[in-house]
């Protein structure tokens, strides 16, 4: 029983960052109809930025995290502006190929700049874990979870309470009519891609100090993001949030009770099951973007 509780706790904590990754990807797909293969690279980028500032330049750890998120937003906006804006109206296949190109280019840049050797980031949290009755969790993971939840809630509020969020939802539901309302669709695309990228960078920045940082770390993160988005239904904010937590639980349970070697396979097994029985995702069409 204690072990079960421990797995639940670990799954929840892991799920928070998975949800961040999923929300970013699902917003980009929902609003822009772009399958963002570079999503994982934004995750890697976030982790390396923290490494750059916290380890190489010895800046404050928390400041480095904030910088990673901000620069993730900036990089996302730049990618949208340079690569996607000229392709507006192009077929989804075209944008998909371009994003695959961006993925390869970004990953090789990381390899070139940082070499293939894994780097670790030290964090200022105490080494001894937080003990809660029968279970325990490291302080850095508690922090990661808290920030992830804050970002999820913040994104939710942004989408539901602000003028920008309303325009994003309107664009998602009916692009042409949103344009008739005076929404600048191009600006909404840039904002959406920047926001989605910022969330991916935040996930990478948060998990970089927990694991290690290496150039291909984004590949698995991207695959998992796709799994979460498929699980939750494309373009579905709530679905991506819950999907992230479900993936966290399933991985943790699979690793705990079956074999830790199959941890990453568990999520994909889950996707196969979901796609067989509910091809539109678990929460499709209940609540779309927002």
């Amino acid at each position, binding site marked *: 029983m204690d072990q079960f509780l421990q797995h639940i706790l670990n799954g929840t904590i892991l799920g928070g960052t998975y949800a961040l990754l999923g929300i970013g990807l699902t917003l980009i797909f929902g609003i822009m109809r772009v399958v963002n293969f570079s999503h994982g690279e934004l995750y890697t980028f976030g982790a390396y930025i923290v490494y750059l500032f916290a380890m190489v330049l010895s800046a404050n750890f928390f400041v480095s995290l904030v910088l990673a998120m901000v620069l993730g937003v900036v990089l996302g906006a730049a990618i949208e502006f340079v690569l996607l804006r000229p392709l507006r109206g192009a077929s989804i296949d075209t944008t998909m190929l371009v994003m695959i190109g961006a993925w390869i280019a970004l990953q090789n840049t990381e390899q070139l700049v940082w070499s293939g050797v894994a780097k670790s980031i030290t964090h200022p949290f105490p080494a001894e874990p937080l003990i809660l009755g029968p279970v325990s969790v490291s302080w850095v993971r508690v922090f990661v979870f808290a920030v992830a939840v804050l970002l999820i809630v913040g994104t939710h509020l942004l989408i539901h309470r602000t*003028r920008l969020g*309303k*325009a994003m*939802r*309107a664009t998602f*539901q*009916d692009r*042409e*009519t*949103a*344009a*008739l*309302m*005076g*929404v*600048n669709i191009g600006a909404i695309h840039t904002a959406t891609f920047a926001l989605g990228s910022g969330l991916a960078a935040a996930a990478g920045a948060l998990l970089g100090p927990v694991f290690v940082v290496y150039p291909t770390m984004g590949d698995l993160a991207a695959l998992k993001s796709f799994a979460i988005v498929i699980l939750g239904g494309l373009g579905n904010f709530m679905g991506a949030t819950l999907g992230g937590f479900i993936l966290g639980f399933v991985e943790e349970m699979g690793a705990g009770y079956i074999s830790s070697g199959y941890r990453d396979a568990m999520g994909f097994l889950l996707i196969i099951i979901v796609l067989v029985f509910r091809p539109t995702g678990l929460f499709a069409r209940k*609540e*779309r973007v*927002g």
Partner: protein
Amino acid sequence: MLEIDGLHCRYGKVSAVRDLTLEVKKGELVTLIGANGAGKTTTLKAISGLLAPAAGRIVFDGEDITGAAPRTILARGIAHCPEGRHIFPDMTVQENLDMGCYLRKEPGGIARDLERLFERFPVLAERRRQMAGTLSGGEQQMLAISRALMSRPKLILFDEPSLGLAPNLIETIFEIVSEIRAQGVTVLMVEQNAYAALELCDRCYLLESGEVTLSGSGEELLNDPHVKAAYLGG
């Protein structure tokens, strides 16, 4: 107020509108009638900027708006209430109306307009927290019209506002359109229901395969033998 001169619109290689010239004067209610595919919706889309014309000029209030972005055209004072209502289904009634005044910056004026709309359409006030997709067809059309009015347009484009509504509701919608004109908003309306369109309007243009084949006052067109035979059921 609105002058269109030699407008051509194309979807790929197919011409949808050819050499269309029309004029709407301030305070008028002008209708465009014609069969399916005659180019009525295309004309409205060209005016509101959803579609870039292949040739021709669209001038509004003395300013050339040909090929401008929809938001620029909206800011000049043209609202487009699209065919099939196109409300945002997963947003509340209130949020739909908020989208209608997306470009407006004066909260006081917006609040006053909202109050006036809710007085005129109490059902929208009742349902303001409800998702727009759950409204009935007639309510959705009222919402679509209200949303277009929230931008405080000088000219409003209606595309088949009666489409898919029950006969008694169609009458209500046409009454609303007349009211809007009576309040000083100029109206350009596309309507398939030729009889109603001709009854209601000051002037009317008949579109056939992308060209204006006839124009005149509603009465003139009502008595025209070709219109009678082809559009008014003999």
